[in-house]
């Protein structure tokens, strides 16, 4: 890899290394002191969360101040001179773990995020049935990618601890793997601790890192292992030939985890490896002196493994991913063609589906963050092509970083904003390398001044805070009192009590119809089978939004084998933040962003054979198994 012509200055050390710089490269440097500032940041976030639970409106300030205290000093140190590899790695690890703790403090008593509840169901099924591949009504594709749940349940089985505790331990280990692998990958490509450190820090600025990358869901396992495979393959180039077989075995083992762990990560890795192999082939056409082990066998292994697994085992994957991708592409094409209609119409930025608007300062920071990225992106791409033109993976990352503006376009369309949002975890891998290279090589190439470092730190902090504020509706940034149809804010004791009662009193596996938030709880903690269109059941919105239960609707319920209906009376008193009932019924659209009329909820009392078995004030559970039998 002699083509990598970074000067010592560009790597962050002066031309003649001073004794203190040499010492810094081998010791922990500022790491202990900055670990204290990072801990203070976590402490502020914790205080903010506690105050937010008490309903204090000013508590959010603690979150943002805490995040800045956690992030900014680490970012500043990573840009300053004399940064050693251990110190850089330690700082990024502290930041990664600190951000993991931030998510943990959001819900420290149990898994509450929607995706977490879906995967808890898979884990519960494994513990209950002691085997894999039991259908999951909340996320049908989840049982086919059980790697995370296998590791979690193995710990739960062996130690006797709960899925929550076991999951937290696994997620913490995965966070360490993510930081080490990403830092190692970027360091191997750039040979610069500063670019590697800045890259990792900028990766943590993606909008999903604060919460989504730390939740108990399969991408929390898939992405770290994707980085691990890439790192091992890059490391393979610089290691002695006798170690290549061992590293190949490690890379293939990690690949198995991705293929059986997360579909999108497996596909992303496949795409990266194929592109990497192709670019390497093109470079070797023009530069025959470029040597090193080929990645083609790994691309082939990934292709064969991923395809075989999807076709033989996880055949639901195609049905799960294809409609979403097709919908996103169609919506995007419509946007381009200005054929805006229905659900595919242009989405209003910073507006949730429930009509909530993000505060002005959040909108400002989010836009500033995008601008900060877009300004440095071309510079970074140019620097990458200039410095790493003979490193195939660097070229691939440089090309992939150009996808970032496309993901911004996806956010503009209602049908594809979710894909645009979720893709940030993948797009930020090339982006963080390109931005890190751009800022370090151009703005901080060795002339260390306070103003330059401060400017760069501000730039990175804006990107980080901009990513954090766009991670979701602003009311979900912190815990707090109950909100209707608001993901983790809808997980409250009486909803949990109803789900737990069903599991104990009527047993598991009953087909149940309810609103989206309660469906998640009933499916995970209640071990019931929520009727969702995503799992092939009937569209329950047809009878939830009906004014009365006609004989047709009763018969419809009967054909859908609906045994229980769980009604949340808060639907008629609170403004929902998101989707209330999943389905295609357009009648429901007129109730978007406003409470459902009480009469729609009370109609389940009327049928003669309907029985209300449970009442806790907010939730009613009806047994409707005998309703519609004679219709």
């Amino acid at each position, binding site marked *: 890899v002699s083509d990598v012509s970074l000067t010592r200055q560009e790597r962050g050390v002066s031309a003649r290394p001073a004794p203190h710089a040499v010492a810094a490269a081998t010791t922990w440097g500022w790491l202990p002191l900055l670990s*204290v500032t990072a801990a203070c940041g976590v*402490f502020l976030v914790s205080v903010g969360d506690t105050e937010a*639970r008490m309903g204090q409106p000013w508590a959010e300030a603690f979150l943002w101040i805490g995040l800045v205290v956690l992030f900014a000093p680490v970012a500043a140190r990573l840009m300053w001179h004399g940064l050693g590899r251990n110190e850089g790695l330690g700082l990024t690890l502290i930041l990664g773990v600190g951000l993991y703790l931030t998510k*943990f403090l959001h819900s420290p*008593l149990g898994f509450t995020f929607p995706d977490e509840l879906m995967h808890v169901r898979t884990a519960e099924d494994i513990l209950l049935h002691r085997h894999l591949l039991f259908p999951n009504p909340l996320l049908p594709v989840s049982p086919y990618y059980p790697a995370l749940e296998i590791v979690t349940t193995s710990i739960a089985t062996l*130690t006797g601890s709960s899925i929550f505790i076991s999951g937290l331990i696994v997620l913490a280990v995965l966070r360490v793997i993510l930081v080490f692998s990403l830092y190692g990958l970027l360091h191997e490509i750039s040979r610069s601790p500063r670019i590697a450190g800045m890259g990792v820090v900028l990766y943590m600025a993606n909008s999903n890192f604060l919460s989504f990358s730390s939740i108990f869901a399969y991408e929390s396992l898939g992405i770290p292992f994707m980085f691990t495979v890439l790192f091992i393959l890059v*490391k393979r180039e610089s290691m002695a030939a006798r170690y290549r077989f061992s590293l190949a075995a490690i890379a293939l083992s990690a690949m198995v985890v991705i293929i059986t762990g997360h579909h999108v990560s497996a596909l992303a890795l496949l795409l990266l490896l194929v592109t990497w192999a192709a670019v390497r082939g093109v470079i070797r056409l023009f530069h025959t002196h470029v040597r090193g082990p080929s990645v083609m066998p790994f691309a082939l292994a990934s292709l064969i493994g991923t395809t075989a697994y999807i076709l033989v085992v996880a055949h639901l994957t195609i049905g799960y991913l294809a409609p979403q991708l097709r919908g996103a592409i169609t919506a995007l094409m419509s946007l381009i063609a200005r054929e805006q209609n229905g659900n595919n119409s242009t989405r209003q930025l910073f507006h949730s589906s429930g009509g909530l608007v993000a505060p002005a300062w959040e909108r400002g920071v989010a836009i500033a963050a995008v601008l900060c990225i877009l300004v440095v992106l071309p510079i970074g791409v140019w620097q990458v092509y200039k410095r790493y033109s003979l490193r195939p993976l660097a070229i691939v990352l440089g090309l992939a970083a150009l996808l970032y503006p496309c993901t911004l376009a996806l956010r503009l369309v209602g049908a594809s904003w979710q894909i645009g949002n979720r893709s940030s975890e993948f797009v930020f891998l090339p982006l963080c390398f390109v931005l890190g290279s751009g800022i370090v090589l151009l703005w901080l190439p060795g002339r260390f001044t306070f103003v330059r470092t401060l400017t760069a730190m501000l730039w990175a902090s804006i990107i980080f805070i901009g990513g954090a504020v766009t991670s979701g509706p602003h009311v979900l940034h912190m815990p707090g009192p109950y909100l209707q149809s608001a993901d983790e804010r809808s997980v409250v004791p*009486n909803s949990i*009590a109803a789900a737990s009662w069903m599991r104990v009193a009527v047993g598991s596996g009953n087909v149940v119809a309810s609103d989206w938030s309660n469906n998640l709880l009933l499916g995970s903690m209640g071990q019931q089978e929520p009727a969702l269109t995503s799992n092939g059941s009937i569209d329950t919105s047809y009878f939830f939004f009906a004014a009365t239960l006609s004989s047709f609707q009763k018969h419809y319920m009967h054909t859908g084998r609906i045994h229980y209906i769980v009604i949340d009376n808060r639907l008629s008193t609170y403004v929902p933040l998101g989707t209330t009932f999943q389905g295609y019924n357009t009648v429901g659209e007129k109730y978007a962003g406003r409470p459902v009329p009480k009469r729609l909820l009370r109609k389940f009392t009327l049928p003669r054979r309907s029985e209300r*078995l449970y009442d806790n004030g907010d939730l009613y559970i009806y047994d409707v198994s005998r309703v519609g039998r004679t219709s």
Partner: protein
Amino acid sequence: LLLVAVGAVTAVVIVMLGGGASVVRVLMVLPLVLVLPGYAFAAAMFPSFEGVRGVPEEASLTISERTLIVLSMSIAATVVLGFLINLNPGGFAARSWAYALSGFVLVCDGVAVIRRLRSPVRVHRRHRRYVARKQVLLSVLALGIVASAVVIGEVGAQQQPYPGFTEMWILPAQSTLSNSFTVGVVNQQASPQVYMVRIHSRHHMLYHSTWFTLVPRATWTRSLHLGVRRAGRAYVTLYRSQAPHKPYRTVFVHVVRNLSKTARPAIQPATLSVESRGANNFTMRVANRGTSSQTYLVVIRAHHHRLYHSPLFTVQSGGIRTFEVHLRVRHTGSARVRLYRSQSLHKPYKTVFVKVVQNKPAHGP
């Protein structure tokens, strides 16, 4: 490698001993999943995993890279072994996991030992890096701050104020008799609450409890067999002492007719009988035929005058309360003996008429 083997065997022994989740068990068994398989696998792959003399730093593996390989390969091994265990009919039992993981560790350990013996490269330990006392203190301080942040977060989440609630439910009882149900009430409020349960059909009261107190998290359950003369709904209503006339929770079930239309309901919660012993002396008997204790009140009136008013008294289920009454009456005629229940003191529950004779001046104090 010896330590790895010993650790694996120790973890298996702890798993076999069983018991609940404890810190010791977690700390001893956790490496069996997250550290030992990866370490043993990497040691088998790299006989010189601990560092090679003469090999430049860049061509070797750093501590962080080794840590990464150990952790990621541990997870990979667990996943692959998980798929293999799934083929076993016994599935994911603790024993299966313990045997599979420890077996994998011991096999890799053995391979690593053999490869190291054959390896031409000498293994040596790296120089220890000494950390300054100030750095240790700062790290301890950071850990202390993080620990306090976690404690504050946990306590804050546990003490988050939520509105209290009460659960009430009804389920068919495990009985061959029709109309057999189990009713339950759970107090999820922060303070003790006083409740009363009443079950009625459209026309009849089928059951009512006395007022009962539930401390937080306590549960009240009753198995009931309802005698019903007309099929339809039976409503179970919960009342709270704070608002005794306002239904607090309501559930309902469908009941079938299990009594003839002319038959009296099978459940006769109470009977009142009055026996005259002459000279306005009476023996009154209140029998509670219900399934739970009840609180009653007896009032005797004649010609718009109240002749007798008992205190509230409680009769246990199946019990009888007898008491003697001597009445002083201004006019000969009939007196009305009424039994009231504490649930509805304004509404007479039973009424019996008795003959009384004048034994007191018609006028005067």
